[in-house]
């Protein structure tokens, strides 16, 4: 069984967010980590590897330094790593990103593709399902668990108040929730081995069936007009009422705001 796991290097928001003067994210000034949902997806893949002797190829798209997330994935137990990097691919929105990554994955053998639900920097949750669409394979998003049964995957899909159990024929794509599992730690020896391993690096010219109109900033239909720090909410409204009046007051407010 061959599993492709897509991971993204994202700014670590643990120590706060740093902006450039123009309102865009100052990625260089922030520590970088593997996106939490992607890391959970990798853990799901590693558990499948232990059960079914799978081979895991980790794919990332980013700047040359993004190979650090591939090394981290190696140190956790991934087998191969592909870095898609090229200046012409920069500034990509979800459409251009998913078109590019799907083109990269066309170069690989795979039975299952696992991505995280969404990245903590963009929060779109679009890239995973879009990759599946580009490749013309079934997509199951918000996976809480993934099992393999013959040539099918059985996935528990999480909703707010329930889960669905879905079955899809492989090859298929699954997007995983960070809550699905606790990712394992790297091992010290795994880290040392990770830096001995070769990362496959692909530029624009290594990607097949990819229209230039669909890559990079130029190929991105979405443009960011402005990014800014979250505006703090003002102080709430304080009222002192007896219990019966309180209930009425709250119900009126909820109705007024169309919450109920």
């Amino acid at each position, binding site marked *: 069984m061959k599993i492709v796991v897509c991971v993204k290097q994202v700014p670590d928001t643990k120590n706060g967010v740093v902006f450039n003067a123009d309102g865009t994210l100052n990625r260089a000034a922030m520590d970088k980590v593997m996106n939490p949902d992607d890391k959970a997806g990798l853990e799901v893949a590693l558990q499948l590897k232990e059960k079914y002797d799978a081979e895991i190829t980790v794919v990332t798209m980013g700047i040359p330094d993004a190979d650090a997330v591939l090394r981290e994935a190696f140190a956790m137990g991934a087998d191969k790593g592909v870095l898609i990097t090229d200046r012409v691919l920069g500034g990509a929105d979800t459409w251009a990103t998913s078109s590019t990554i799907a083109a990269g994955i066309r170069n690989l053998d795979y039975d299952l593709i696992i991505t995280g639900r969404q990245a903590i920097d963009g929060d779109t949750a679009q890239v995973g399902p879009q990759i599946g669409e580009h490749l013309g394979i079934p997509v199951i998003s918000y996976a809480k668990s993934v099992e393999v049964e013959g040539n099918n995957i059985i996935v528990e899909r999480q909703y707010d108040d329930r889960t669905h159990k879905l079955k899809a024929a492989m090859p298929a794509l699954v997007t995983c929730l960070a809550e699905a599992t606790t990712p394992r730690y790297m*091992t010290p020896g795994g880290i*040392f081995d990770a830096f001995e391993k070769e990362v496959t690096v692909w530029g624009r010219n290594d990607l097949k069936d990819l229209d230039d109109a669909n890559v990079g900033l130029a190929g991105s239909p979405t443009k960011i007009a402005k990014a800014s720090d979250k505006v703090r909410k003002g102080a709430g409204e304080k009222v002192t009422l007896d219990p019966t009046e309180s209930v009425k007051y709250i119900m009126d407010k909820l109705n007024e705001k169309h919450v109920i």
Partner: protein
Amino acid sequence: MDFTLDKKHEMARQLFAEFAEKEVKPLAQETDELEQFPEETVKKMQKNGFMGIPIPKEYGGQGCDVLTYVMCVEELSKVCGTTGVIVSAHTSLCCDPILTYGTEEQKQKYLVPLAKGEKLGAFALTEPGAGTDAQGAQTKAVEDGDSWVLNGSKCFITNGKYADIYIIFAVTDVIEDAKGRKNKRFSAFIVEKGTPGFSFGTKEKKMGIRGSATYELIFEDCRIPKENLLGTRGKGFAIAMHTLDGGRIGIAAQALGIGEGAIDCTVNFVKERKQFGRAIGAFQNTQFQLADMATRMQAAQMMVYRAALAKQTQRVYSVEAAQAKLFAAEAAMAVTTKAVQLHGGYGYTREYDVERMMRDAKITEIYEGTSEVQRMVISGNMLK
């Protein structure tokens, strides 16, 4: 000469720091308060390869270097001195002598499970009447057929009772020199927990590193197989001294971590704590104290890393190890004391981590050779 860490060491440090923050820090206060050996944490460290970091892969280890191991002890000790010394005693004092002096059979039988994290190790040299003066040791080993028979006791043994495999030093011969003075000759042995005649005495009640299990070991006609002699008969003292050279680097790393951890706590505290209408970090006294603390630990870190590299590349590294331990231990004691002072009354309560850190720091000036012994080693090398 380059003071930057390469990417793999940086990544290893991130791993240790993340593990320490998530798995060790939440339990540090309870481990101390209840004087409880952190068994669950040790199991997690065993599972994640922390117990065989500098041991070659062919013997079940991680195949990393001494610097990586030192960074592991440092990061763990930043949040819990107890957890740091468990790894240090296991790795430096039990795995290392078997790797250095063991036969291939001994390495396969004992080192592989130790380094894989299936077994925990300990080292026993100190006796009630013999600390710095090893000649005072009374524990004897007598050859009897296919066995060695051990009698005597050891005290202050780190990882005692919880460890599965022990390196034990015992007198095997008494040699009379030309002037008629009697000299004891020691030998080293590998002894498994559960061997008949090997039992545990009292558990020490300590000032610091209170979660570390410190036990008395008792040997009463304890019979061990002849092949469990480690190294050559009569060379035990040299094995012990060489092992302690390595162990001192581990303890130096523990001291380094404790001091750095106290600085982290203090920086957070002085930003929050207000007096006279200002955060106490705004006062110059606080700033100067912090600067001195950070400078001292920075110097300690360089010495500890230098000693780690010396062990990696040199046959003899006694002076580097002694200097690193001497400096780091005294720096940790001074820095944790200042940390408590900057915390004021809160620093004297057990609610704040610096109180524990100050107690934990003290032992680093004492065990695996007191600061006075380190000075003897350093000056002895200068005057030889």
